[in-house]
């Protein structure tokens, strides 16, 4: 399955570890930024995560010129327009996105408008439309899962037309991603678990998919190793700063991996389920991961067996006969899900979520067939296959 050709691209400067936030002013000065704007959401503000950023900038000699703290969970073109207006009114010259996937996507989209001009976001939708670099852009992720700080994609819904607008361009990548353990320290247990499962899925799908390559493999395996080692310790001791940083790094590394080798069937099913039932993305990933791996098993036996080493460590790997490693890896993922269920009630079946009706499964399978990620599933997926799979994930 190893591909004899690949592309790999990640020009994002990653600034990670203790006091990483305090590097932000220096980075901005390096790009002649004088009036940055922060784009974030109310939850972040209330969780007290804005304060350390403001303090770091103030003390570093950069004054924040504007703050927009009203990004909704599912961001829209009107929100992006509002941000662009504020940016222009306050004569800002850079954007700092602070938050999870939605805040980061919104920051990327706002940066398109303020750099390219105009108020019509739709004209920039699609792949390869942007032809030159955008204004300075920084990302401070506050969840450890999406990997959006290293992906060249943003999705914004156009509420008037009822469609989701995709934007793809390497110019959407930030100038720097700041990974500071303070930002994820207060993440509630169920979000910690769900977002970590999203990162685990990114790394796993990157490693078993059709577009895997040696460079993304390196990031994927390192991310899986960190999640295997640190997720349960952090669930047991949420204030474990070292573990928090390791999980945040794992998420960034998994993001680098999948943005260079794509995701697969788990994401196709997860996107469809999220759209139909409004379940959080990370929860969907956790629900489908073992079943999608089982579905592809005979096509991914070798790489999946190798993942056992990274997930469970060398001892367990060495004790497991080669021909059982792939199954053991799936069993380890199931065991991890059981542990997370015990600790924070993370659902393991669609039924356990309480938000999905059995009658919706057909529509979910149908919608998954339209998802781009399904192209990268090693085994071809028909409607019947997808339907059988979601039925297995039901209970």
């Amino acid at each position: 399955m190893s591909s004899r050709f690949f592309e790999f691209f990640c020009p994002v400067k990653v600034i990670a570890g203790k006091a990483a936030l305090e590097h932000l002013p220096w980075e901005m000065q390096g790009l002649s930024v004088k009036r940055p704007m922060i784009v974030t959401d109310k939850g972040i503000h209330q969780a007290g995560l804005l304060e350390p950023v403001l303090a770091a900038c103030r003390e570093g000699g950069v004054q924040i010129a504007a703050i927009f703290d009203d990004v909704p969970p599912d961001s829209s073109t009107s929100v992006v327009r509002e941000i662009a207006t504020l940016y222009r009114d306050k004569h800002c010259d850079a954007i700092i996105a602070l938050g999870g996937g939605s805040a980061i996507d919104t920051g990327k989209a706002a940066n398109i408008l303020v750099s390219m001009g105009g108020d019509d976001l739709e004209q920039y939708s699609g792949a390869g439309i942007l032809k030159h670099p955008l204004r300075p852009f920084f990302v401070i992720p506050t969840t450890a899962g999406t990997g959006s700080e290293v992906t060249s994609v943003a999705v914004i819904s156009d509420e008037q037309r009822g469609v989701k607008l995709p934007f793809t361009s390497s110019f959407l990548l930030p100038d720097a991603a700041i990974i500071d353990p303070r930002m994820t320290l207060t993440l509630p247990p169920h979000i910690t678990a769900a977002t970590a499962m999203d990162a685990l899925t990114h790394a796993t799908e990157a490693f078993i998919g059709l577009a895997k390559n040696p460079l993304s493999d390196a990031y994927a395996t390192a991310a899986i190793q960190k999640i295997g080692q640190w997720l349960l310790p952090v669930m047991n001791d949420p204030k474990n700063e070292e573990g928090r940083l390791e999980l945040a790094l794992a998420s960034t590394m998994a993001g680098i991996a999948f943005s260079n080798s794509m995701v697969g069937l788990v994401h196709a099913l997860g996107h469809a389920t999220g759209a139909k039932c409004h379940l959080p993305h990370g929860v969907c990933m956790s629900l489908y991961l073992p079943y999608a791996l089982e579905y592809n098993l005979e096509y991914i036996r070798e790489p999946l067996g190798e993942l056992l080493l990274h997930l469970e460590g060398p001892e367990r790997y060495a004790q497991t006969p080669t021909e059982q490693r792939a199954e053991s890896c799936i069993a380890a993922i199931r065991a991890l899900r059981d542990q997370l269920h015990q600790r924070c009630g993370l659902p393991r079946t669609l039924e356990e979520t309480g938000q999905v009706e059995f009658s919706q499964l057909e529509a979910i399978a149908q919608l998954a067939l339209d998802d781009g990620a399904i192209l990268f599933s090693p085994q071809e997926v028909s409607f019947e296959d997808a339907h059988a799979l979601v039925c297995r994930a039901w209970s």
Partner: protein
Amino acid sequence: MEIRPFQTLTLRARRFYVGAMFQVMGRALQAMTEVDGEACRETRQLPPGFLFEMRVLPSGPVMVVEHTKDGRLRFLGTDAPRPINLSIQFKHMVHAFRVVSFQEKTAIAFANERMLVDGDIAYAVRMTRVLNRLETFILPRFLAVRAVKQYPRSLGFVEKTAGAARIYLRVLRNLIGNERPYE
């Protein structure tokens, strides 16, 4: 430096082959949706009047297909009467050649970023499955397994040979030009 003639000949042959394969595929797509219910199940989801093209950048061969209605596709040649809804663009002639000479599977070519999609990705995914189905139908099995991810389990020998014969016949008749696309 002088360009040696056999090189330009190779380039021209490659261009000719890709152009010819686009013609064959375009006609075969049309024929397939006239006989194959499974393919229609996919194409029926496309809006009526939907225009699909495959082209080679920057100025290589083009193939334009229209979804008329009820899953039926119609091969329009190289010119589109309206703006295209979905375009699959090979970045280079060599990439197109490798795909249409079945040296690289369509899905792998996507994975390797040999081509770009301009348009709704959901339709691109659907058209990829239709192209896969086409390849399993019109190619001998040993070639088809190289072209698609998996040879469909449900495609029995009788179904395949009967289907392939009917598609070939229709392609042939279309190529000769004495059959109207829709009777």
